[in-house]
């Protein structure tokens, strides 16, 4: 009887820690019931912070679990973004549950497990690991979207998300099984070797599998033509959950997208580049045009996030170092703009009820000058007006596209961002130039204020010191391209 050695798992320590902590928190929650919600939220945030630190201490050393779990500077960077996004979402959710008096201790725990799933996705070095991470994330998010089970809209959102998410998982699995069948392995390195060998004479099975894999992943980043679930789910889910959906899973899915396409499929770049170019153009255009008609601000942000994913995909389509680091910078900025905007939406309450129409913001500059100013900053930033952070995100992306000689893509991107500016400016017009119809409630909680003003400050002062972010994103992109290219 041979003694089997334990696989190396030191670089997975943030994930292992989060999994263990999640189960302990669940136990605490079960015994303390709903009055433990605040404590659990704090504990969850603490766990996320520990995971970030552990990621920097132990990540990037070696691959864990026989190559199924990859850590590089790229995964470290994207995991930090995901964790920051989740921390802010927990803050918003805790605040929301307090004001709505709908406390459920499962919310922070489910966010923790969803985040764990995202981190596992980003680190996946194997098709099965990819799928399992994705499912862990999705399953937690389905439950979170439907968490207000007495509200018709929330349950509808949860159900729609679940059905369409299951469909996309099915497509992804089908693609993965084809790739496995025709390459003989689920391991990314082995797949890369097989593809490198048959570069000029690629088997049709791998190609079709790749198309299905891309479709499944496009579903998760809600890129056109797989976007139809986004507006309904965003509108129906409770606002802080919408904030979470708009941030962390998008970052995770996009990083996974990059990891898969630049990883095992880097040799057949000309095969997938055209698909990415198409979905990027379609997302940007639809995100810009469809949002023009929206009256509900959460639906509007759904279309806006579809558009943003289109811009980020330009970076992937460029498939060079500048493109990848551009995507990472874009995602980092996108995170703070979105968190701030959703914080502002959470302030929109009238007579104790949450309101979501854009017209409800009329005259907000007089009743809520600070909140209106913050929203103005976020909207200008999303529209890409210098010197706010959003401008630089787009700048790096377009620069990468031009470097890769994708001029059409860059031009369409600029045009659609001009169109999109219209609806961002429309919100500002409501706040600053319209008369108050019925004033919104006064008073922001301390946490909400911290989140809104904190992200506003970051968005404003980004241009003073972009160096840290840009250099660490460049380092992350180098780690990815360097290995595979």
């Amino acid at each position, binding site marked *: 009887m041979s003694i089997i050695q334990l696989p190396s798992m030191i670089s997975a320590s943030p994930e292992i820690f989060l999994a263990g902590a999640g189960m302990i928190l669940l136990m605490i929650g079960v015994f303390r019931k709903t009055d433990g919600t605040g404590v659990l939220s704090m504990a969850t945030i603490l766990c996320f912070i520990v995971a970030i630190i552990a990621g920097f201490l132990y990540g990037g050393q070696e691959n864990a679990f026989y190559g199924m779990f990859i850590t590089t500077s790229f995964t470290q960077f994207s995991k930090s973004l995901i964790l920051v996004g989740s921390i802010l979402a927990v803050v918003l959710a805790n605040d929301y549950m307090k004001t709505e008096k709908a406390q459920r201790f499962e919310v922070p725990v489910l966010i923790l497990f969803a985040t764990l799933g995202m981190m596992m996705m980003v680190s996946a070095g194997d098709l099965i690991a990819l799928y399992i991470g994705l499912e*862990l994330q999705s399953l937690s998010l389905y439950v979170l979207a439907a968490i207000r089970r007495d509200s018709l809209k929330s349950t509808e959102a949860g159900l729609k998300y679940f059905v369409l998410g299951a469909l996309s998982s099915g497509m992804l699995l089908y693609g993965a099984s084809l790739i496995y069948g025709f390459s003989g392995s689920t391991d990314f390195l082995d797949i890369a070797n097989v593809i490198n060998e048959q570069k000029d004479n690629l088997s049709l099975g791998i190609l079709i599998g790749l198309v299905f894999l891309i479709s499944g992943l496009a579903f998760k980043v809600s890129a056109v033509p797989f976007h139809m679930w986004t507006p309904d789910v965003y509108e129906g889910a409770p606002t802080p959950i919408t904030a979470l959906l708009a941030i962390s899973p998008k970052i995770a899915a996009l990083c996974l997208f990059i990891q898969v396409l630049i990883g095992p499929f880097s040799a057949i770049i000309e095969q997938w580049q055209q698909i990415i170019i198409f979905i990027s153009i379609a997302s940007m255009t639809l995100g810009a045009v469809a949002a023009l008609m929206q009256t509900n601000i959460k639906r509007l942000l759904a279309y806006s996030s579809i558009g943003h994913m289109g811009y980020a995909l330009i970076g992937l389509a460029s498939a060079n170092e500048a493109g990848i680091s551009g995507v990472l910078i874009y995602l980092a900025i996108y995170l703070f703009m979105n968190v701030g905007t959703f914080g502002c939406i959470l302030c929109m309450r009238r007579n104790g009820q949450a309101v979501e129409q854009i017209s409800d913001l009329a005259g907000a500059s007089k009743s809520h000058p600070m909140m209106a100013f913050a929203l103005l900053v976020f909207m200008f930033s999303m529209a890409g007006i210098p010197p706010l952070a959003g401008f630089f995100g787009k700048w790096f992306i377009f620069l990468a596209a031009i470097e890769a000689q994708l001029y059409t893509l860059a031009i369409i991107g600029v045009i659609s961002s001009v169109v999109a500016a219209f609806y961002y400016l429309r919100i500002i017009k409501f706040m600053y130039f319209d008369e108050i119809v019925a004033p919104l409630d006064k008073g922001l909680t301390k946490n909400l204020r911290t989140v809104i003003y904190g992200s506003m400050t970051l968005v404003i002062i980004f241009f003073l010191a972009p160096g840290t972010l840009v250099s660490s994103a460049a380092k992350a992109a180098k780690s990815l391209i360097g290995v595979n290219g």
Partner: protein
Amino acid sequence: MVQAIAFYAFAFVTIAAGVMVVSSRNPVHSVLYLILAFFNAAGLFVLIGAEFIAMILVVVYVGAVAVLFLFVVMMLDINFVELRQGFMQYLPIGALLGLILLVELFFVIGIWSFLEDGSMLTAVIPVQNITNTHALGNVLYTKYVYLFQAAGLILLIAMIGAIVLTLRSRPGARKQKIADQLSRRSEDILDVVKVKEGEGV
């Protein structure tokens, strides 16, 4: 010889039980026949040396799925007589589908036996002289420990989700509180009253 007898016995009972599942009038009997069919299928798996799948079949299908069916049949008020009414009407299309499946089966077996290196396509039997369960356990807890644990987490989330979305606390419901029952003393609840004759309480 013994194997052949066992095979035919298992196969015959499986098919007979399958026929009874669709044809018996009482739905509870159907489910019981289904369980019988599962057990015999498990016997067939044992015969071809797949003892792990046989045990899984019994544990999962008989233990969980069939019991779930039984619950559905007994708890829900479904009129099975009405459901069965279209049986003759759907018989032709059912027969057609069965025929297509049969033809496909012949194709598969035919191609298999005419293929020159068809035997190459069968699964490689590992050289070590160990059981299936042992072989699975060897990789499940070592090579695939990451996926195994992560799959466990997914099941945990599924359970949390089911509880979060469906469990409701009903304030009016009466529950048994054993601590209360035990701490109850006769002095608190019993009054001993002396009743005079002819007067009542």
